[in-house]
């Protein structure tokens, strides 16, 4: 421990309060003299008491007694939430979120977008069934669907630490990165963010700029519940396309035109793109 003694002695020494602002606050406190209590009419007083009791009862219903909040959405429903100042969440459909303010901890099943103001003194821990995300202040999308083989974090800005609960592996994810933790023990992968695709459910927009067709098709599956395969020679073709509230049939038609290919039905809910060729780069 001795080599670190000087660093331990320096604990919080970098912290510098703003003296002028503090003095201003002191002046405000000094000027706060206790005022003569006003005598409210007894009727008004009783109305106040009843209002407080009703509010307390409502609070008891909506927040559990220890302050825990539980929110859930049904299919097709999204829910914007402000859990506390500087902690905003948009909960995607078929998801649930529990907030334990005393522990600075959240538990997510499903998918949500988080926008969290910097909170260096109170780091937030967001848990999913298989992962933890340690947050100090950032914005990102977290997806933990039970039917999918991975838990995914897609960063907008800031950084988080993404922890695999089983292996205890962890990785730092920075702005515009996407991290996946695979449930089958294949570890964690980090790649560039999916061009807004992870935020599509919230923003209604995803833009792909010269991205391989197979990546675009994977994102289509995710958002439209539609399986689209492509012939091998098309898989790596660079494609520029925007999903902006488009219907899946429109996107298929655009892909047919870009690739000069044909989409034919395949399987129960899918299509196969065949023929055609990669578009020439401008």
């Amino acid at each position, binding site marked *: *421990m001795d080599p670190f003694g000087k660093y331990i*002695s320096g604990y919080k020494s*970098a912290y510098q309060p703003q003296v002028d602002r503090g003095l201003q606050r002191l002046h405000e406190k000094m000027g706060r003299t206790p005022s003569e209590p006003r005598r409210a009419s007894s009727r008004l007083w009783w109305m106040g008491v009843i209002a407080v009791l009703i509010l307390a009862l409502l609070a008891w219903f909506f927040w559990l007694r220890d302050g825990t909040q539980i929110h859930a959405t049904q299919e097709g429903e999204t829910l914007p939430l402000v859990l506390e100042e500087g902690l905003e969440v948009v909960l995607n459909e078929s998801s649930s979120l529990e907030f334990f303010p005393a522990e600075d901890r959240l538990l997510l099943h499903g998918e949500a977008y988080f926008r969290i103001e910097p909170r260096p003194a*109170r780091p937030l821990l967001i848990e999913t069934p298989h992962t933890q995300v*340690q947050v100090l202040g950032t914005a990102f999308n977290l997806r933990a669907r039970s039917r999918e083989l991975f838990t995914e974090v897609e960063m907008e800005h800031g950084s988080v630490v993404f922890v695999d609960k089983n292996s205890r592996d962890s990785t730092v994810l920075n702005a515009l990165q996407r991290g996946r933790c695979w449930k089958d023990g294949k570890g964690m992968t980090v790649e560039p963010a999916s061009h807004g695709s992870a935020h599509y459910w919230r923003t209604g927009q995803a833009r792909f700029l010269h991205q391989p067709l197979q990546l675009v098709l994977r994102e289509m599956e995710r958002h439209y519940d539609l399986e689209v395969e492509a012939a091998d020679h098309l898989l790596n073709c660079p494609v520029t396309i925007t999903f902006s509230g488009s219907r899946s049939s429109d996107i298929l038609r655009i892909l047919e035109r870009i690739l000069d290919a044909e989409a034919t039905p395949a399987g129960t809910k899918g299509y196969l793109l065949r023929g055609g060729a990669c578009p020439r780069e401008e």
Partner: protein
Amino acid sequence: MDVKVFFYFYLVKESEIILEPVAEAIPRSAHRSECYMPSQPPTDDELLALLQRAPEQGIDLLFRKHYAWLCQRIIRLVKEPALAEDLAQDVFLELWKKREQLRIQASIPAYLARAGRNKALNYLRDHRMDQQREELTDERWLVEAQAVAQLQARDLQDRVDALLDSLPDRCRLVFVLSRFEDLSNREIAQQLGIAEKTVENQMNKALRLMRAGLDSYFS
């Protein structure tokens, strides 16, 4: 004859605050003028005398001289900057309110440090902030602490700060009281209302966790 200014020390005991008067002599030279116009930085004795004669100027000068280090001291106990600053302001507010009955024995820094510590401990006790996160296992602590440190650390000092911040609350409090407030195990036990043996255990735990956190960083 020297003018005596009396100060009050806060002592935390159970749920009440006991005021203990102590006294210290102040030089007569400190009272030459009501309006202080220093040609060199005023001494604490001069500022205390000024607090009696020209209170608003006195409290401002005392605040400017001692606020920053007092905040630094309190933040080690409560971690949150806004809370530390609020408590430090309250220390000066008490000084202001009691200015006419003040008698001093210890130095101003010693008085402020002790008052700040007691304010912080009272706050933590009232808000049960020393009882959270006790359930963390060493392993869970290590994962969380390393994650936080990894995010915060620009240098080794940041790293050590983040690790200390991440210690379970009571463990951190015991460590800070021992290391930075120079309290004995017996005094810590009295302040926190816990057994002396618990203080020893928490100190050992703090050292063990810090060693684990720092070892893995350098291995």
